């Protein structure tokens, strides 16, 4: 599967919709690390994360016809499939038991994550980015985006009113945008 061809997002979607496997190869080469990163944030074991990633690509392949570009970018659609599949995989088993174990094992998980971050050069950039973000914003985004919390659950967990969660999401993403724009102009 050596898909060296370069696609625009629209060409890629069209190629995928027409059943072109080399387009899927391109998609894998360009997006699998981002999708795997998201899955790894949600699913604790590497083995389960690999299963979820396989499932995600099969879903993408089968359901690409339902992707509607007027509803958002391809990337957002892909990430949401990865996220939802990862969350579903965690909820399949006794979710409550799992989350108890997760609470106990939190420290272990974070060590593993640090180990993972060391493997990937992109994380040097992440560290810089995270340092620029307010910790409570980062925490909220991570809970909502990577850990699959609903806004209500996040409000309860972080012990802040639901209204604050809503306004804080806005501020958090504004800050993310500023940091991101600052970064791209630097390059």
């Amino acid at each position, binding site marked *: *599967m050596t898909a060296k061809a370069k696609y625009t997002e629209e060409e890629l979607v069209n190629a*995928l919709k*027409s*059943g072109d*496997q080399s387009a*899927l*190869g391109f998609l*894998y080469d360009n997006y*699998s*690390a*981002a999708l*795997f*990163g*998201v899955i*790894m*944030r949600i699913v604790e074991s590497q083995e389960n994360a*690999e299963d979820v*990633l*396989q499932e995600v*690509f*099969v879903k993408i*392949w*089968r*359901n*690409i*016809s*339902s992707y509607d570009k*007027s*509803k*958002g*970018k391809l*990337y*957002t659609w892909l*990430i*949401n499939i990865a*996220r*939802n599949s990862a969350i579903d995989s965690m909820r399949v088993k006794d979710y409550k038991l799992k989350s108890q174990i997760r609470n106990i094992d939190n420290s272990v998980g974070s060590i593993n994550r640090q180990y*993972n971050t060391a*493997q*990937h050069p*992109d*994380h040097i950039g*992440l560290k810089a*980015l995270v340092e620029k973000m307010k910790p409570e914003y980062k925490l909220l*985004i991570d809970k*909502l*985006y*990577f850990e699959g919390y*609903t*806004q209500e659950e996040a409000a309860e967990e972080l012990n802040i009113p639901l209204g604050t969660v*809503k*306004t804080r*999401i*806005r501020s*958090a*993403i504004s800050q*993310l*945008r500023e940091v*991101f724009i600052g*970064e791209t102009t630097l390059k």
Partner: protein
Amino acid sequence: MNIQEYISSGILESYVLGNSTPKEMKEVEKYAATYPEIKAELNEIEKAIQAYTTKHSIAPPTNLKDKIFEKISDKPNSSANEPIIRSLNTNTPLATASSYWSVAATLLLLISTGFAVYFGVKSNKLDGYMDDMAKVNIALADSIKAISSNMAQMQNDLAIMKDPMYKIVDLKGLKIAPDSKAMVCWCPTDKTVYVEVDKLPAPPKGMQYQLWAIVDGKPVSEGMLAMSSGLHKMSDVENAQAFAVTLEKAGGSPTPNMNAMYVMGTI
């Protein structure tokens, strides 16, 4: 509608994060199609999230790509066997569509009936279990109540016995019943009297024990004794020199029966 207000409400961010309700999603999609400002804002939010998630990238193991492609080769995405999400307004003739739907509906009905029966049985079992648990809970709550009221009584008693204002008077058994025992706690300052029976023979029917304070050589009735454990408050008394218990007819006597004195203690 106020576009700026809508943009700053945080709804668009929730939409991109995938946290909005189906109703909100519809609304956002409708507005994004109508107002270019909203569409542009959504785009920017998506870019920011994209940047953030890209930063979290972790390369999957190299053999995973081949595994995925193996799976996919068995399942071409254009195959008619695969469930494909279609929009409802296709050009398929209505008759075919409706017969397809009726089969689907029948299947669904069968499945849901199955589930209903299954969960019905399960729920009956659960109901019985819940009843048992409720009974256990009530029993536990009762014993906790009893224990905590005992505990409160004991703490109360202990506080009195530890209070230096109270004099502790041991009433020792007399000839009539030498191993009898009782205790009086008396506070000379505020005149309060408490008594506890440690050991007294059970009173015969129609009889009751009566507590007396000896004030200047004369017995003063302090009231009838309760046989239950713990301190019991009696009548106030001033200048007592001794306390004693006699067996009297139920309800008490105006003067003690000196031949039926069981315990006594001087201060």
